């Protein structure tokens, strides 16, 4: 498949929601080592609300999917996570405007803009033990892939590898920063969330592709 329909974009958000709900306790556990132990609960709840809100819209457009997800994350979730994950979707809105479907080139732009937005909002970069450690390699892997299927597969691998790399790092941002060297040995919850999200999309996309052939 060479394009993502609106229905499939909604499928992405549903897949993310299922994935994060299934891994809620694992994310809470990671957050308790470095933060305040509720990351899994708050982000899975936010995506459940996003799914409900999108599916309650009559004939939602691609624009609705991105905008609604951004708004729910920013305002229902709140905190640093809400601001960062919300910014990611918010930055994609200008590329979904008036589109009926997304080609890989559109998705490249959406991911790149989202990445830049998150880096700017969080003033963070690779190596700071944040979601960027998973997101940046994933976006790069996606963009350098030839098609959507390869893109999601390569992005998922890169994100998982990036998330695992945070275990050896000292944090430079957020609450984890204040525990210094003791952060070493713990994987970052935000980076893990990115890996889970992209793995969720990859699995959904594989099902869609297999269903179509």
């Amino acid at each position: 498949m060479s394009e993502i329909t609106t229905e499939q974009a909604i499928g992405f958000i549903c897949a993310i929601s299922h994935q994060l709900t299934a891994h809620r306790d694992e994310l809470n556990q990671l957050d308790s080592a470095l933060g305040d132990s509720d990351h899994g609960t708050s982000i899975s709840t936010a995506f459940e609300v996003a799914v409900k809100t999108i599916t309650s819209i009559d004939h939602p457009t691609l624009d609705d999917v991105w905008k609604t997800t951004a708004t729910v994350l920013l305002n229902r979730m709140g905190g640093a996570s809400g601001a960062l994950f919300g910014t990611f979707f918010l930055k994609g809105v200008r590329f979904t405007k008036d589109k009926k479907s997304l080609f890989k080139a559109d998705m490249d732009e959406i991911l790149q803009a989202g990445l830049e937005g998150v880096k700017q909002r969080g003033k963070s970069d690779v190596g700071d033990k944040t979601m960027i450690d998973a997101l940046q390699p994933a976006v790069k892997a996606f963009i350098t892939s030839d098609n959507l299927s390869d893109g999601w597969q390569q992005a998922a691998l890169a994100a998982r590898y990036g998330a695992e790399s945070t275990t050896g790092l000292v944090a430079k941002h957020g609450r984890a920063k204040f525990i210094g060297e003791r952060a070493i040995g713990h994987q970052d919850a935000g980076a893990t969330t990115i890996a889970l999200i992209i793995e969720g999309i990859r699995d959904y996309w594989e099902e869609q592709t297999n269903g179509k052939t």
Partner: protein
Amino acid sequence: MSVRKQKLINQPENILNEMLAGFSAAYSDIIQLTDNQLIIRTQPKQQGKVGLVIGNGSGHEPAMIGLIGEGLFDVNVAGEIFTAPGPDRIVEGIKAADRGAGVLLCVSHHAGDLMNAEMALDLCQAEGIDNVEMAVLYDDISSAPKGRETERRGTAGLFFVWKMLGAYAETSGDLAATKAIAEKIRDNTRTLAMALTSCASPITGEVMFEMPEDEMEIGMGVHGEMGMGRQKIVTADETIDLMLPPIIEDLPFVAGDEVLVMLNNSGSMTLMELFILYRRVAQRLEEIGINVYKSWIGPYATTQEMAGFALSLCRVDDQLKVLWDAPANGAYLKQL
């Protein structure tokens, strides 16, 4: 020390709404809960004076809901537990605080609070709401070394900012001067905190960090972030002897200075313990020649049932002393 995991709540997802409903029912003479979940003053400040608004995560009561009222803040945007409110809600708070002379958005420096405040200011700009300024406030000396003060986080010592800034804005129509006062108080305030026990997240019921029974930790955040230094528990006097010198050296506070002192109860310390601790603080300050103008001991910014306290000092001059003594009427801070 084992942690009490059970809390008397209903559904975890209703904590914020039910807490605000109960608080506003109890103190309706001082504050009101609006339809959009803002805590505002029952007696609004005069027109033409600078509005004060702050957004913050909940779970730290009485901060900040208890500091809304006359001579204090105008609006509090309470977020979910330990989670800063999102930008749309902060913008609503800014609008509610506007009395025609601009609004100062105060931020207790934490990553989430700052990001959401910045996004709220962007939204204000996009909506054409100018005359909004942001003051980023911090006090915890354990969160970044001297010389990198702007990286420090906001903790219990900001109590001094809230009280004196509130008094200033009650009569000032000058937004820039109001922001300058907030920063002046911040730059004269230093805090160091300690904890004996952890606490449980009200959302998940899980212990927020592990703490061996015979240890204590110096340098705690208000969210129970693990601090910088763990050691065996020592006596009250020895604890103050460990904590006071780094605070004094950081500003530095010197002989002849006049200071406000606060011992903030992080949750489940007894007043008995806090008075014993304060006795040592007063002794040591007297030895150094630092004069205590006024003190405040009690729970202001808590982290659930954590056992621990924060020690804060604020250097005051004549202007700040007048502001400290000015009347205030919040549900949890009163000055006659």
